[in-house]
């Protein structure tokens, strides 16, 4: 029954026009970035390397598909949560708003299974978004700009990675990005369990992301003990995969914290939904 309901949830997601907003927005945004980089990418690169280029010269194809994929991932990972929450924040509350929740619960399926089927559907949607992002950024980026060594700017300097050493990093980076976006999915699902309208959980999710991001960005010592526990702090942990050597312990820590948030949000969603009075 769980898988049958999950299948139904996927049909519902695919039937909603808003589900395609995310894919369309991603396509448009990446097309704009690719066009901008093709037209004037060298200026963007020189912004990063200018202080080094007074003393050093960089030989080789710097503006290549690997760098474009990194730039796209870095730029869009901030905005994709909105596209995810737009669909996943609506999964429970949307049904409550439309009055279909009562009908759904007349089926021989437990409330916990309803939440899990919606969670699996949300995970599939998030995965499709991440795969689409990966296809446009990595495959199309490489097709347009070619391949080459990847030059990455970190807080402690430039890291230049060999072309042959990049593919597995992107594979893991997209996995970590997927986990980060799943945290957004589960958060919005948890909010969705509390609400009876679509807008509330979506706005609440974005409000939490903005609040946590601002706390994370504030260089104030009072937040130093809080920052390591905010999921937004660890959403950018995919970036650490492009360090040399890779800080595996830091990445593992981020993955555990993101997983813990996922479990927490799903638990809240299940608990609230099981206690919820279905009055609509």
């Amino acid at each position: 029954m769980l898988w049958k309901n999950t299948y139904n949830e996927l049909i519902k997601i695919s039937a909603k026009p808003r589900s395609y907003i995310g894919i369309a927005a991603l396509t448009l945004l990446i097309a704009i970035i690719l066009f901008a980089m093709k037209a004037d990418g060298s200026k963007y690169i020189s912004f990063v390397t200018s202080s080094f280029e007074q003393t050093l010269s960089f030989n080789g194809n710097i503006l290549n598909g690997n760098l474009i994929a990194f730039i796209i991932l870095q730029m869009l990972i901030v905005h994709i949560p909105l596209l995810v929450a737009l669909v996943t924040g609506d999964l429970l509350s949307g049904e409550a708003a439309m009055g279909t929740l009562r009908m759904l619960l007349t089926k021989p399926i437990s409330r916990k299974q309803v939440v899990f089927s919606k969670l699996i559907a949300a995970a599939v949607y998030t995965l499709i978004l991440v795969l689409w992002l990966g296809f446009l950024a990595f495959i199309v980026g490489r097709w347009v700009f070619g391949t080459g060594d990847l030059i990455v700017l970190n807080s402690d300097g430039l890291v230049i990675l060999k072309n042959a050493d990049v593919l597995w990093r992107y594979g893991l980076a997209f996995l970590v990005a997927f986990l980060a976006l799943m945290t957004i999915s589960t958060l919005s699902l948890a909010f969705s369990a509390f609400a009876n309208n679509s807008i509330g959980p979506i706005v609440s999710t974005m409000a939490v992301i903005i609040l946590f991001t601002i706390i994370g960005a504030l260089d104030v010592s009072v937040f130093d003990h809080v920052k390591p526990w905010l999921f937004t702090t660890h959403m950018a942990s995919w970036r650490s995969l492009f360090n040399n050597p890779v800080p595996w312990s830091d990445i593992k820590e981020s993955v555990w914290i993101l997983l813990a948030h996922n479990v927490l949000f799903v638990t809240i969603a299940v608990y609230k939904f099981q206690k919820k009075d279905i009055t609509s």
Partner: protein
Amino acid sequence: MKILFLFSLLFIGQAFYAQNASQLVKAIRLKLEKVNDYSVDIHIKAQVPMIKIDEVDAKMYFKKPNRIKVESKGIAILPKQGMAELNYFLSDEKAYTCAMNGNKMLNNVNTAVVSVIPLGDQSDIILVKLWIDPKKELIMKSQVTTKSNGTLDVTYYYGDQAKYGLPYKMVFTIDVKNFKLPKSVAADLHQNKKSPSNTSQKGTIIISMRNYIVNKGVGSSHFKN
């Protein structure tokens, strides 16, 4: 009379030293002028603070007077100056004057230290200091100070191409104190956890050369961008 004699000695000594310095630089210039073009396989090992890069293999082409091109499959970091500028600067003997600054032991070689000062103010080079092996007439070390890029130290090691003044290894010591990272781009997750791994103000780039092909012709196509 004694004072006049001492001044004369000093003047003659200075003139002898200057002539000696010019002769040394001229000998090197003549050796370098034998090279019209060359291609060489290079191996680049960069140890520069704030830059992490693996060792890179590349091919370098040179053509007179100062055209140089490095072709590599990946990204290769090279010093902005120092590959051909010094040779080009020394090729015009009317553009500079030389002065001897004594002798110094360098890698078990008693080198003559020569300062080469540009005569005009149009050159980017402000001062060149050369450590010359007077017996082999080879530059063992150079220190080039330019208006645009500060000071660059290069140490040279010679093998079977010493007859052309071409080294098999060059060690560049570069000043990195002006390196700055754009903060808005550089922000990353673990920036508060770690202090910069290297606070040194100096970096080195070691370029090893092998398979020199000298004066066999290098096509212009290599120098097209």
